[in-house]
Structures are given as structure tokens and as C-alpha cells.
């Protein structure tokens, strides 16, 4: 067993578990995007950052890939962590504004606007589909290709792969292509209405076209601030 402190609480976890698992064990919420139970941790999205160490030496690490260490001091929601997460989610929103998963994460982190040039790129290279294909579907039909800004996910030579069985696992886990929310103007799609924060309002009329298909709607709450 390994003993460490998370947000001041002592916890002992089994050797080999990650900081994310340790924090979840204690019930501290950490947002994740590219992490999924049953798939190997990959550390692509960096949303799950936590701060480890103390004082000068403290640093941000991705909790889904960082193994628990003896005596480690972890903070899961320090100001620095929250700032980093907000920035990351803003950048994710900038590249893929229409993903419901990302929007939900954004509104949970209280991000309602993003300040960057809007791209409508669909893939955020989280690698969920690649891992799904390889680890759960045992196919290895898709993978990463190229590098830098040309990095993409797909089959070799962009033709149908011999090993693909059309299982659809990749589409199933994709945070960008499932459940698209387009609001009525895609540019402003970060309405946050789907975060299920408060009971539905009665003045349906006034907020009708703002309403998300997920209920309850909180459009009125958002209007206030």
C-alpha cells in the first residue's frame, strides 16, 4: 500500500494506482476527457491536471497517468489547477465547439466563452478511438498518423482497413462525434444549459429556442449572469 495526502486527507491506495484513482476513491472530483475505464491511460487532454509537491517545486501533472507515490502531497483543486483546467477547456472549445461532452465539461468548470479563433476541427486527438479499437475491439484498424499540426487519426493510406469490422466502437467513444449540440447558432454553442444545474423554468416560451434537448433547461440562470 502507498500512503499519500490528497487535499490534506491521508489515503492509502494499492501500488500501481494512479492519482486519479486515488482521488476518486476519496470522492474528489477530477474532470477527465481522454480517460476511460477499460482503456489504458493516455494523458492527451490534460484536463485531469492536479498539483503535486510543495512550494517552489510544485508542478502540474496529469492525474490519469501519474502513479501514486509514497508521501506525495496532491491538490486537486488549487487555484493553479483550476486556472490550468479552464484554459485547457477553452482551447478544446476553440478547436471543437460542437461536442456536447466538451461543452458539459466547460460549463461545469464555469467557462461560458472562449477567447480564441474558432476552428471547427472535429478531432481533438484524444486517442480514445485508437485505444478502443486496439484494446477492446482487438482490431488495430486506426491509429495516429503524421505529426505536428498534420497529426490525424485514421486508417493507413486512408483506405478501408482489412482488419476493421465496422464495430462502431470508435464512434461510440468519440467525444467529438457523438451527441452534437449545435444550439441555434453553432458559434455560441457553449450555453451550458445541459449541465443540469437547477430545476426547469416555467417560462418555456421565453427561452424556447435556447432550450437544449437535454432537460432540465437552465437558460434563465445563464441569462442572469
Amino acid at each position, binding site marked *: 500500500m502507498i500512503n499519500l495526502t490528497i487535499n490534506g486527507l491521508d489515503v492509502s491506495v494499492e501500488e500501481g494506482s494512479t492519482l486519479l484513482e486515488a482521488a476518486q476513491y476519496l470522492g474528489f472530483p477530477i474532470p477527465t476527457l481522454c480517460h476511460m475505464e477499460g482503456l489504458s491511460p493516455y494523458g492527451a487532454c490534460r484536463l485531469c491536471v492536479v498539483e503535486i509537491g510543495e512550494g517552489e517545486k510544485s508542478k502540474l501533472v496529469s492525474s490519469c497517468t501519474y502513479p501514486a507515490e509514497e508521501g506525495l502531497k496532491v491538490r486537486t483543486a488549487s487555484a493553479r489547477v483550476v486556472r490550468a483546467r479552464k484554459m485547457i477547456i477553452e482551447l478544446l472549445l476553440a478547436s471543437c465547439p460542437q461536442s456536447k461532452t466538451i461543452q458539459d465539461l466547460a460549463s461545469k468548470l464555469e467557462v461560458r466563452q472562449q477567447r480564441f479563433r474558432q476552428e471547427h476541427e472535429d478531432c481533438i486527438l484524444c486517442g480514445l478511438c485508437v485505444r478502443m479499437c486496439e484494446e477492446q475491439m482487438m482490431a488495430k484498424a486506426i*491509429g495516429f498518423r*503524421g505529426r505536428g499540426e498534420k497529426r490525424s487519426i485514421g486508417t*493507413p493510406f486512408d483506405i478501408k482497413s*482489412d482488419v476493421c469490422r465496422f464495430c462502431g466502437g470508435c464512434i461510440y467513444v468519440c467525444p467529438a462525434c457523438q451527441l452534437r449540440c449545435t444550439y441555434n447558432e453553432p458559434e455560441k454553442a457553449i450555453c451550458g444549459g445541459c449541465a443540469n444545474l437547477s430545476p426547469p423554468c416555467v417560462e418555456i416560451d421565453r427561452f424556447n429556442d435556447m432550450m437544449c434537448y437535454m432537460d432540465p433547461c437552465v437558460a434563465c440562470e445563464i441569462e442572469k449572469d
Partner: protein
Amino acid sequence: MKPSDVRVILNKYEEDRGGLISILEDIQAKYSYLPHDALKIVSEETGRSLVDIYGVATFYKAFSLSPRGKHLISVCMGTACHVRGAPQIAEEFERQLGIQSGGTTTDREFTLETVNCLGACALGPIVVVDGHYFSKVSTTKVKQILKNAKDRLDKISIEKDRRIFPVEVSCVRCNHSLMDPNFLVDGCPSIKVIVSFENKHGWLLLSSLYGSYKVSSEFDIPTNTIINFFCPHCNAELSSATACTACGAPMVPMIVKGGGMVQICSRHGCRSHMLDLNGINF
């Protein structure tokens, strides 16, 4: 492409099937690109998935998935070359060859690519054609370079070189002279560099007589070791993108006073070298 050829390459790596990059390099050396079917065979024979191999092949700039030309022209677009006008030079090449950078001419003669810093900034803008460096290139020289490449570069045989004359060299990075007048080798000022190999680190003095292979060094260097060379002034590693034509080790570039570049093989005991004097080859 013949599947048997690819299998021959693969057999070479029988023991070490992990060396995917070396396998791909060999295939690329044979065909000048990586044919689709060759990758399939590699996948079948090594048991690696095609998508992994494709990922590696597309990750490295050194690999190409489409056929390349006979001559490879690399225009350096590193910072130092960039400020000295490399973009215009690349444009001029594009214009004269009628292709975009990254492309190959329809007659399969030339492939043009841009690279980021070849480690010879002091000589910039640099253009490398089939491993031969052309220094201080200007747009007016482009035509000549293309012509040289077409008629001559592939015919040079360096082993036959018997001329002896002293050269004066400097570092390709900082342009400081590497000559050491206090220490004579072959009766001429020697070339002083820092070398490191097998955890050892020390000075090495080379004869400045072109064609002489005398060296004197702090340590005994066993033959066949590949040595890393460094500039004693700026500590930059002297290493070029070119591989020795005789043994495949990386070449070590130095600027020759008067314009031009000499490259020697980094393997101790290998006598291969290349001399490009302002693009004219000896």
C-alpha cells in the same frame, strides 16, 4: 516492387525485428520511398500492425510514401538561413522545377524539400543536393546547382582523391577558426576539435593536409568507433545530415576558408570525406 526484395531486407533484421526504423530506412534506400505493398509485407512478417508502421512512416520526415526523384534537394529554412533569404531560394527552386516544396518533378529527376537547420548556419543559406552542401546560395546560383546536380554530382568518386594541400577550417555553427597554430601535425597547423566517445571526452588534432589522415588525440581511439565531434569555441556538435557513403556513419562538416565545406567521416579509421568548394566538387 518485388516482395522478395523486401523479404531480403527483412531477413537482415531477423534477430532484431524491433528495429522498425532501420527496416523502413533500408526499404526507403532501395526504392527511394516506402511503397504501400512493402509496408504490408513488413507488417505481415514482423507481426506489427500496419497502422503502427504507417504511423512511424508518416511521423518522420525522412520517410516518403510517394516516389521520390533521383536527386533530393533540401533547402534549409532554419532561422539563420531564413533571415538570409532562404524562402526566396526555395521559391526559385519551385519556379525552376515547376513543383511545390515536398513535390517531385514529373520526370522523377528532382525532389524538393525544405528542412529546418542543417547545422551549418554560418554558411547559410544552405542547400544540400544528394548530400553535397552548397553554401551561401543566392537565387542566381539556383540554375547552376540544378545543372551540377544533373550532370556531375552522382559521378564523383572521392576515394580516388590523392591531392595534398593544406586547408584552413572553421566551425559550421559559430564560424570560429578551428586551426591550432601551436600544435603541428604533418608540419602544418592542426585542426583542433573536441571529441567524445564511450564516455571519454577530450581533444583531437587532425592534420590540415587534405588527403592526410594523421591525427593525434588525448586518448587511443579504437578503430571503427564513431566519434562525436564538437567545436571547442561554441561547443556545438559538428554533425551533418549526410551519411558516409562508405560506412554509413554521420559525416562531420567544417567550413573551408575561402568558401566551401569539407566533410569527414566520423568513424575512426574510415577514410571517406567530401570536399565542396563553393559547390564545385573535387
